[in-house]
């Protein structure tokens, strides 16, 4: 069990799940968020008729925290992988619990910092006009996440399916495939089943950079 969380807290706010049990499901209305005390959960999403594991979380991790901000439907499904014990929070008890656990508040602060950046980055993709630029910027963003230097002429593996890329670009799948095939035809990328190999990331970084400069003017 996670240290620093007494039994009385579990009695009041705790919940237990069996292996395989769904904790919440994508598109379900959301109202609360969770801190894992023990066990592991799997974060999944169904993309193009395949269940994809986005992350595995364990003791001390927080999930579903977007519910404190806005009651949007859940963006992913969480399934207990082992027997799982969690604390359940909502807007009402949230501040109270944080007060006795500043460590958790700090953790949340860190998650928010990351989330703000990720959301801003995604918004940047969506401000570009033209499907080919958006797709290019998805490659650049994924390279950034892997810590690849954008001026280096290297290969980068993008672990995304065409569906996922289309979703990130907010364009129809057909348009996305058209762009990908065009890039592949030009030898700029290799199109594989579940991933894309970008042959020279610097080239895409430059395409996006120039496009942005144009917008600024």
């Amino acid at each position, binding site marked *: 069990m996670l240290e620093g969380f007494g039994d009385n807290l579990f009695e009041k706010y705790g919940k237990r799940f069996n292996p395989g049990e769904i904790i919440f499901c994508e598109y379900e209305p959301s109202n609360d968020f969770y801190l894992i005390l023990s066990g592991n959960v799997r974060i999944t999403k169904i993309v193009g008729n395949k*269940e994809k594991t986005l992350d595995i979380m364990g003791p001390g991790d927080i999930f579903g925290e977007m519910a404190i901000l806005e009651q949007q439907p859940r963006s992913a499904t969480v399934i207990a992988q082992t027997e799982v014990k969690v604390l359940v929070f909502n807007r009402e008890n949230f501040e109270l619990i944080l007060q006795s656990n500043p460590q958790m508040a700090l953790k949340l602060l860190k998650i928010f910092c990351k989330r703000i950046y990720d959301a801003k980055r995604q918004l940047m993709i969506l401000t570009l006009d033209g499907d080919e630029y958006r797709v290019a910027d998805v490659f650049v963003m994924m390279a950034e996440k892997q810590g690849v230097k954008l001026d280096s002429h290297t290969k980068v593996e993008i672990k995304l399916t065409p569906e996922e890329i289309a979703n990130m670009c907010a364009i129809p799948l057909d348009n996305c495939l058209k762009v990908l095939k065009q890039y592949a035809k030009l030898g700029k990328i290799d199109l594989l089943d579940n991933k894309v190999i970008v042959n020279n990331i610097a080239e895409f970084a430059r395409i996006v950079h120039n496009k942005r400069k144009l917008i600024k003017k």
Partner: protein
Amino acid sequence: MPTIRNYAPGSIIYFEGDKADEIYILQSGKVVLNYTAIDTGAEVNETISNGEFFGVKSAVGKYPREETAQVLAPSVVLVLSVEEFEQMVLKNFRVLIKMLKVFSNQLRRIGKAVREKLQQGEPKMPATELFNIGEYYFKQGKAEQAKYVYNKYLFYYPNGEFAETCKSRLKAIESGEFRIEQPPQPQIEETKPEEEIISAPSVETEQIETEEKPKTEKPVPEGIDVVKKFYEALSLFSQDKIQEAMEIYKNILEIKKFKDEATAQFAEKAQFELGRCYMKLNMFAEAIETFANFIKKFERSNLLKDALFNIGQCYESMENYQKAINFYQKVVNMPPKEAINTKAKKAIEEVQKKL
């Protein structure tokens, strides 16, 4: 140890794109942050007040600086490492909570902007998508997961487009007729794929169903308990336990006969509160339907105006401003003149500003 640094006017504390590992507190002087707004592309200058933190997000989130921090007047700045920053805010809970609020507001704003852009692509109906997830698990032979999703669907959208399908799927799972990995059967699939998988319920399965009813339906006892349950739900609602509150309201609404008039009134109240629950969950279409049913069922209710007003609010949230005004107008026109009539009038004025 946190260190103090002095900066002359015109110097730069950090540039956009720099690696971020320090966090700053402005003690005195004048510092501005320059950056380009993502959505508008406009140059923004944000002045830091004395005592304010800056450079927090990029340092804590471990990503490059998103703005340039420029010194405009002789300034004294306290410099912290990320660890020092963490130690400091852990000891100062109020600062930590305040930051959390500021950041969550930013996140909410950006999240909204992203969603608006994303929805331009293809609008998704949460109800349909939820059902599709159930279908995915069902077809994969994952009975437990499918059951969870179908039950959730029926809970949130009892009159939804796929409610009947969910019910028959659940029946199939319960009866054990549900088979893992149904091989596709082309000829039948074209006409009636659903029935093929479910198979017609036999007499046997119906018997099982009646036996199980008491377990699943949780009947609410008559009389005093209805009242008690209702107030329990109200209290759950106020604690933000919306789903739990909804469950109780729905149970109350399932009761066909009440022991007396006084108790029967709670059905009316429960229906109204159920609508409020949907509103709280931002499920506006469902909220409108619930309030509309309320108005139909309890046309003499003294909550009638409130129900109309709430429908107006739902339409306003859905950015259907004309409909919102129509409903607010109904409240305004309805005698006697009460506080809510004035409230509706004000609401109309607010909505008109948005048009």
